[in-house]
């Protein structure tokens, strides 16, 4: 749900304003709710609580619509027609339900053998992480690798495991572990999500990834529609409604493995000179302040936030922004034409769609502008606004600034921060300002790098034992996973971890205001490390206007 700026004020009080942590500012554009805390409250419920507490929250979109003086009739009618349309197109031939199949019956079954054979096929074997999504009736919806049609047997087993634990033990299945593999189960509404991972991610981190995958589905359908479909037809084959969304989930999974933004629950901003960001923001403000039902105007580039202008009272949760990043990165079509698309932002309002005008600023600038409104037929006024904004940006030289940052112009201090800070012992770092949920790391991703990772991933996802010569940025982030999970461990949290071995020295440090992870050379002396961190924080403070968004502009 959307949170009001009141929350932000409460969060800020922990840090007196005269002693702001680097990057902290009096008002945040993002809702800095900690995803780990949310996870804790969500996962602590017992089976009974979970069944009772399925959401009946009020709709934020409805709230906005009534505020700007419209009745909600139109939207609700629209929603109703839309979902009934979908249901009519549904195929009538449903295969038999596997829901109540007995576990022991399946052992040694014919179908079971076939399934086993397929699971051993090269498409599926030796993968670092599998993700399966199925309906609570056991129907396959998504598999990261292979063809989910052939995985009906496996999905039947997963569904049976989940339901045996629920029905016969009155309990909730959470995870299964072997020495090298973790299976994590998440039941969300009418869906069952499973991750099978041989990576070093913790159970909590895997559950968060599954929650993201669920949110990605919600973002295409809305939670209301998802629930309604399965209330009407338990056996429904959801893949009919999700065509295209598989690709989004594929990309999201890769994105989550690579980008520390997910590890930290924070958003990365494109480093820009303060003036340039101000100009961009005011260009959007002045152009859009007459469009009264515009909720958010968001400009992004290369999975980084450039600016976000919002309707007063409403903030966005980092995870909603991550879904927008993913949508834009995964959709080539936005590059060629202005698009008008319904988007549900699950944390903002999971019950309904916002309507988005999505387009790239210009052919020579890879920044993408999203204008999100509650108005269903606002394409033309928004398109008009976009062109005005693009023109203003070009005139004020902002496009050049964005391009410089995106292409990592050598002259910018943020292009190669480690060189600019000048502490040779630091190999890598990442920093999160907690009150604004923004992060900065020593390796601002550039577009080509992300592309490279994606093509590499397409070939594989396989586990390979490679000889490490020089760690890539992704490897550093991988290393931080264990530290993150210890710092945020729900039962035995830590405030500071200093680990030194023959490979490297890592310092993980969390305070009320920030989280910091630094990798040093091996055998680093503690007092040197302390001094280096001190200098690092001073540098971040000095550059904070450039690397963070320090204002929370509204229309």
């Amino acid at each position, binding site marked *: 749900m959307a949170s009001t700026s009141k929350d932000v004020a409460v969060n800020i009080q922990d840090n007196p304003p005269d002693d702001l942590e680097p990057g902290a500012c009096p008002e945040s554009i993002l809702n800095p709710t900690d995803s780990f805390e949310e996870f804790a409250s969500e996962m602590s419920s017992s089976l009974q609580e979970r069944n009772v507490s399925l959401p009946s929250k009020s709709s934020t979109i409805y709230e906005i619509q009534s505020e700007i003086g419209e009745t909600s009739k139109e939207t609700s009618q629209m929603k109703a027609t839309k979902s009934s349309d979908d249901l009519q197109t549904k195929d009538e031939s449903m295969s038999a339900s596997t829901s109540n199949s007995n576990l022991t019956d399946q052992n040694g079954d014919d179908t079971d053998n076939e399934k086993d054979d397929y699971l051993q096929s090269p498409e599926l074997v030796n993968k670092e992480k599998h993700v399966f999504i199925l309906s609570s009736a056991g129907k396959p919806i998504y598999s990261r690798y292979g063809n989910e049609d052939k995985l009906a047997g496996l999905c039947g087993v997963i569904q049976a495991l989940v339901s045996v634990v629920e029905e016969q033990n009155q309990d909730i*299945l*959470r995870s299964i572990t072997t020495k090298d593999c973790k*299976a994590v189960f998440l039941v969300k509404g009418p869906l069952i999500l499973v991750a099978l991972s041989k990576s070093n991610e913790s159970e909590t981190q895997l559950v968060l990834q599954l929650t993201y995958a669920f949110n990605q589905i919600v973002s295409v359908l809305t939670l209301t529609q998802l629930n309604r479909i399965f209330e009407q037809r338990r056996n429904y084959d959801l893949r009919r409604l999700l065509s295209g969304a598989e690709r989004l989930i594929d990309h999201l999974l890769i994105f989550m493995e690579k980008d520390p933004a997910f590890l930290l629950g924070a958003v990365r901003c494109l480093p820009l000179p303060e003036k340039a960001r101000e100009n961009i923001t005011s260009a959007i403000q002045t152009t859009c302040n007459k469009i009264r039902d515009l909720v958010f105007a968001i400009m992004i580039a290369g999975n980084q936030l450039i600016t976000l202008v919002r309707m007063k009272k409403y903030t966005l949760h980092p995870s909603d922004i991550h879904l927008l990043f993913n949508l834009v990165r995964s959709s080539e079509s936005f590059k060629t034409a202005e698009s008008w698309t319904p988007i549900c932002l699950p944390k903002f309002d999971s019950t309904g769609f916002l309507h988005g005008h999505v387009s790239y600023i210009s052919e020579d600038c890879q920044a993408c502008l999203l204008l999100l409104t509650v108005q269903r037929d606002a394409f033309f006024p928004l398109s008009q606004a976009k062109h005005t904004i693009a023109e203003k940006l070009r005139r004020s030289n902002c496009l050049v600034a964005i391009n410089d940052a995106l292409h990592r112009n050598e002259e910018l201090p943020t292009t190669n921060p480690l060189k600019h800070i000048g502490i040779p012992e630091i190999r890598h770092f990442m920093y999160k300002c907690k009150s604004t949920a923004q992060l900065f790391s020593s390796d601002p991703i550039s577009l080509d790098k992300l592309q490279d990772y994606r093509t590499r991933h397409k070939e594989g996802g396989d586990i390979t034992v490679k000889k490490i010569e020089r760690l890539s940025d992704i490897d550093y982030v991988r290393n931080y996973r*264990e530290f993150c999970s210890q710092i945020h461990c729900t039962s035995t949290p830590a405030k500071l971890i200093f680990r*030194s071995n023959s490979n490297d020295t890592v310092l993980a440090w969390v305070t009320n205001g920030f989280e910091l992870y630094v990798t040093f050379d091996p055998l680093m002396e503690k007092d040197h490390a302390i001094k280096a961190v001190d200098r690092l924080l001073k540098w971040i403070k000095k550059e904070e206007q450039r690397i963070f968004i320090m204002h929370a502009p509204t229309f």
Partner: protein
Amino acid sequence: MIDVKTKIYSFFIFNSSFGPREGEELQRILFYHPSQTSADTQKMQVGLCEAVVKFMSTFSSEPCEALQTQSKRYIFYQPEKGYWMVLVVRIPYTTKALSAIGESRGDVVDPSVMYDLLKSAYKMFRMFRGLFKDFPIEEIYSVCDQFFTPYITSRNLTNDISDVIQGINYLPLDKNSFFKVLCFIDLLEVNYPHFKCISFIYNEQLIWNGLATHDMLTLYQYLVQTLLPRQVAKEIQGGAVAAAQRHGRFIHPPEGIHNQEDLQKLVKVHLMREDDSETKQYYLVIYRTLSATVCFTVDVTVELEFEMFRSLDAFIGPQLSSIASTISEQCTIHALQTAQLAASEHKFVYFNRLNLAFKTSPPPNKLHLSTTIKPEVLSIIASIHADKKNLGNYGEIIIKTPDEYWITGKASNEREFYVIIQEKNANLKEIADEVRRICEAQMKGIFFYPM
């Protein structure tokens, strides 16, 4: 103390190949605790575990280790192919700080402790009964019942570091005293070639070991946790017997050896001695004088004569009591020395994976519960201990918890050293310096990185 009886929800052993067809599910269950559980529940629980094992086998070549539900943890151990031991423990899925769940101190168990409990149960079974697969099908149910029922109900776990890291307490001796022990063992083995000395224990501390390390830990745990406490209780009860004990007696079999018939009561064990290449069967003979306990093995092929044992008794008795007094003097001196050292209020633990040597800071005062280690801290130590790769061959980790505990772990090859310091307003450097001082004072001559 953790109440094992309320923590353990159930404990069972199954082998799916024992009742392969439908309707034969009960035959797969070799043992089920608590035994009054209904047959349907037993079948259902075992069925779930079978399914979980099978499910994971499609994704991993490693055997299944744990299943976590909202309220319980199922811990799996497959000691022999097809034989699965499962311990179901009430450990909730953790989403809050341990202190916030309201779990009273000492009530929280680290999962690794429970896994070790399962492993120790099997090793004990293997030492005193043998391999599961060596039993014919019709016998295995009753063998398991006779062994595991008393075992599981008699287990006591203290929420202590010694349960998180299982090791052996060695007794440091000066050269002369140690030489006396060695001479005694050599002389005995020369005079009585059938008898092989496999361990020499003073109080609860090991002086001499003649077994392969993994068997040594099991035998040591049997002596220290089961046999000796009973024996000591007996000794305290019967004050009059004390005079007779000066010259020692056989305590295994527990009634002693007084005639030829008593020899039938000797227990057979499956052990691997230091110079054995495989596990063999031996008779286990244990002799005790004052606080010294000596264990012998006799090959099962040897024909036992009562005369042999009587003469052995006459030989060991006086010698052992003299050695025991020497060691006792040594211990007094040693205790005085450590008393001076133990001024440090910080707890430390030393562990060597090679010989399982385990040393910890002396308990300051057992009456003060506040000085026991907090479960959160124990759990952090358990995770450092479990993840050996993390520190590599040499390395150091310092973790600060929200309540101002600083936990330091150091690793150097197979050796580990942990220090727990509670200190407000300290910084990394100060903690590292303090740890170095403790390391130098307590572990003189043992290298740890960084110096």
